[in-house]
């Protein structure tokens, strides 16, 4: 069976959940082979083996850490040329999509982004126009390059004994143009990442003030959820832009999405409509968000949300 390459997305070597999802998906399509770029391959190895990687390509050059996107695309292009895989799967993160973009140009291959599923023959399923249509499509030129959204597949362990292959990279000058001078973390720690979270609790205009986001955060923490925000809330400076869900922000597809004080304008719906279960709390019974919900409460969020958080905490204890 031909190899299906999976680009490992990791934090200092610890593979992100989406990597394990992609290895699981790759196993249903061919021989899963992981491509690890950066520092920390030793940390990553066990996890990649546990989730079925039969081979791990490692490009561990320290120089790679100073650059974004372009060098990773060069590493992948080199591995593709050497191993002629059946396809390349990449996490559909902002950087992942850009790596896929550059790889596609290098290989003269078609690229599909934001797949929510990939089946036999590398047929990718996408959800477009904010979930209005499902589209299946295929790469018709070159090696299929597909970026896959987090939460598309449930990760399943299937231990393997991977062989390891060091990839020596000679980065081109073109790949070393954009140099990272500094990395600044703004996110408050401790909560799952928005696009990877199983549960997302989002707040919007109805909160009336940035400081009222604590009630959203408290609810999120009681559920182990990520916190999202509508554009109205981030535009008002109530919550960081990195947490914005919607057409010009993040697209999320969690198991449970809770829209609190969010009317559900099309801008917002485009970023959350494919969530499996949707719940809303809004004082306006005519709010369009109620067209999407599985369960909705018409009421004052300042009464409903604290009561809900208390009730969840009670049930947990």
């Amino acid at each position: 069976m031909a190899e299906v390459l999976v680009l490992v997305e990791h934090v200092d070597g610890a593979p992100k959940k989406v990597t394990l999802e992609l290895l699981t998906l790759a196993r249903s399509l061919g021989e899963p082979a992981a491509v690890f770029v950066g520092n920390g391959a030793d940390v990553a190895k066990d996890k990649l083996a546990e989730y079925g990687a039969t081979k791990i390509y490692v490009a561990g050059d320290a120089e790679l850490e100073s650059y974004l996107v372009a060098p990773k695309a060069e590493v992948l292009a080199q591995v593709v040329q050497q191993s002629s895989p059946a396809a390349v799967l990449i996490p559909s993160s902002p950087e992942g999509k850009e790596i896929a973009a550059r790889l596609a140009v290098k290989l003269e291959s078609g690229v599909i982004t934001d797949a929510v599923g990939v089946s036999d023959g590398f047929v990718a399923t996408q959800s477009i126009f904010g979930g209005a249509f499902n589209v299946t499509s295929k790469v018709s030129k070159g090696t299929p390059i597909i970026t896959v959204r987090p939460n598309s597949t449930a990760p399943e362990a299937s231990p393997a004994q991977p062989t390891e292959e060091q990839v020596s990279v000679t980065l081109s000058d073109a790949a070393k143009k954009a140099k990272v001078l500094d990395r600044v973390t703004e996110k408050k720690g401790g909560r799952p990442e928005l696009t990877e979270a199983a549960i997302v609790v989002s707040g919007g205009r109805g909160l009336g003030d940035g400081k009222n986001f604590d009630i959203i955060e408290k609810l999120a923490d009681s559920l182990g959820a990520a916190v999202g925000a509508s554009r109205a809330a981030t535009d008002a400076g109530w919550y960081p832009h990195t947490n914005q869900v919607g057409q010009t922000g993040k697209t999320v597809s969690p198991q449970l999405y809770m829209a609190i004080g969010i009317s559900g304008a099309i801008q917002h719906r485009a970023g959350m409509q494919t969530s499996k279960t949707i719940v809303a709390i809004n004082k306006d019974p005519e709010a369009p968000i109620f067209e999407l919900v599985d369960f909705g409460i018409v009421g004052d969020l300042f009464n409903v949300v604290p009561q809900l958080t208390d009730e969840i905490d009670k049930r947990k204890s």
Partner: protein
Amino acid sequence: MNIVVCVKQVPDTWAEKKLGSDNTVDRESVDGVMNELDEYAVEEALKIKEAQGGEVTVLSMGPDKAVETIRKALSMGADKAVHLVDPGLHGSDALATSYALAQALGTIEHDLVLLGVESTDARMSVVPAMLAERLGASQLTFARKVEVGDGTVKIERLNDAGYEVVEAPTPAVVSVVEKINEPRYPSFKGIMAAKKKPLTTLTLADAGIDAGKVGLGGSGTEVAEVTARPPKQAGQIVKDEGDGGTKLAEFLAQQKFI
């Protein structure tokens, strides 16, 4: 500093978006607007020009109708425009589009290419990176802040956890996020002036584009099937009578979320 801003006309956010019989986006039957994220790119280009001098050229690939969007960018203050328009471009995917745009960019002198981080119709956000790759230019994408120096550009690149400070030499391709600025509205004077600004039209041949590498046939991807998502079953909606939070907790428990 000569800047090219790439703008795309997309179906209006509020319009019901549809696909044509060949599964491409139906651009005819809906109102078109400038891709919202490109407005921020136009604004940023104008700000850089105002600070440093130079010229701002608008480049757009799209059907005849895309002229509306080009005019808007000109009325905001861009100096001139190039419209890449040819029936052979219809149905181009990202790979083909980036090739066509790169060819057109080859006909315009530039130090910077600015564009929105994604279009609100396709939402792939791959074209900026593809352009950088094709042009051999520096890739500076997802910028929430742009500082232009002498032969270099420094940006703050937005990421999931915060941002990275990234610097690169020109020529560079810079994509911007919406938090970067507040796009200006075209003034009446600007709208009148736009009508007289130079607008060049390029066909495939003019831009040296190989017809076999663009359009539906030249694309690297093909759509197999499109299905409208079944309308969602109406959910249960209850009015809070003082126990809304408890009722919601019960629902979440039934669904095994708690």
